[in-house]
């Protein structure tokens, strides 16, 4: 399950909250600069993957900041392809990989490039959208893009704690109805907040999204592959069609 979205939407904070552990660096300025994979292992450690023949360096978990944060690895100067974090906490969902991606739309274009370059690998996509502003054209384009890669795209409406109860409902209704007009097949929207007092959002997300996806893992997986295959074949066919000049 990969989390995508605008910078500062709260992607890394959400994954930390889900893991009940501050694994990923978060902050008020663009932070995540490298795609980070989180999966199960009985002991915690991390691996830094470099593009050269997939060179891998094993590091302690406490050192990942030096590779995945914009402040310590600006513009990804260390040339990291990805970082994999292995955690015992992932035991209940060991088939799953959680993936944090660098934010889109910030002044740091390389972050968006890294996210989008990785995106074809996604099977279960989650688009993080903050409540303010709720849903932009760019969010919709991102959803369209991801839906060419997998049918399983959902929305995480973050920072719900910034609103009062009535406003929360208003924003949720607005986002849900806007998305319904753009995507009539439906798209699930999960409200979220990492602040104390909003643990029910995490429970609902786990029960309604994670548990359900895990229960039909193979079905979801093959649906994602079929979707990618369709996109690949229709793009290749489209290109051939465009090239084929009709005879005079």
């Amino acid at each position, binding site marked *: 399950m990969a989390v995508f979205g605008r910078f500062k939407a709260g992607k890394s904070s959400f994954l930390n909250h889900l893991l009940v552990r501050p694994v990923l660096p978060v902050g008020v300025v663009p932070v995540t600069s490298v795609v980070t994979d989180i999966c199960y292992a009985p002991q915690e450690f991390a691996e830094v993957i470099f593009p050269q023949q997939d060179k891998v360096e094993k590091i302690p978990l406490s050192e990942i900041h030096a590779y995945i944060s914009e402040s310590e690895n600006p513009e990804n100067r260390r040339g990291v392809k990805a970082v994999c974090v292995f955690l015992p906490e992932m035991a209940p969902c060991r088939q799953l990989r959680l993936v944090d991606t660098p934010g889109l739309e910030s002044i740091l274009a390389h972050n968006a490039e890294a996210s989008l370059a990785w995106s074809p690998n996604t099977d279960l996509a989650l688009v993080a959208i903050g409540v303010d502003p709720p849903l932009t054209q760019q969010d919709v384009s991102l959803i369209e893009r991801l839906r060419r890669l997998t049918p399983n795209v959902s929305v995480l409406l973050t920072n719900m704690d910034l609103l009062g109860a009535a406003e929360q409902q208003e924003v949720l209704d607005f986002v849900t109805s806007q998305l319904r007009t753009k995507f009539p097949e439906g798209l699930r929207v999960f409200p979220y907040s990492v602040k104390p007092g909003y643990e029910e959002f995490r429970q609902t997300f786990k029960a309604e999204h994670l548990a359900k996806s895990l229960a039909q893992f193979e079905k979801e997986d093959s649906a994602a592959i079929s979707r*990618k295959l369709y996109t*690949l074949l229709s793009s*290749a066919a489209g290109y051939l069609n465009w090239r084929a000049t009709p005879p005079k």
Partner: protein
Amino acid sequence: MIGLENQNKKAISVAAEVIREYHLTDLQPLLHAIGVNYVDNT
């Protein structure tokens, strides 16, 4: 690959050929994403 039929495998190789022949680099990551599973599960 799970559930991938023979005609799909054929179609993937044709798509791979088109991508290579015409240098459609934009499509390469997608091919790779499918190709990895394709190798893993057959």
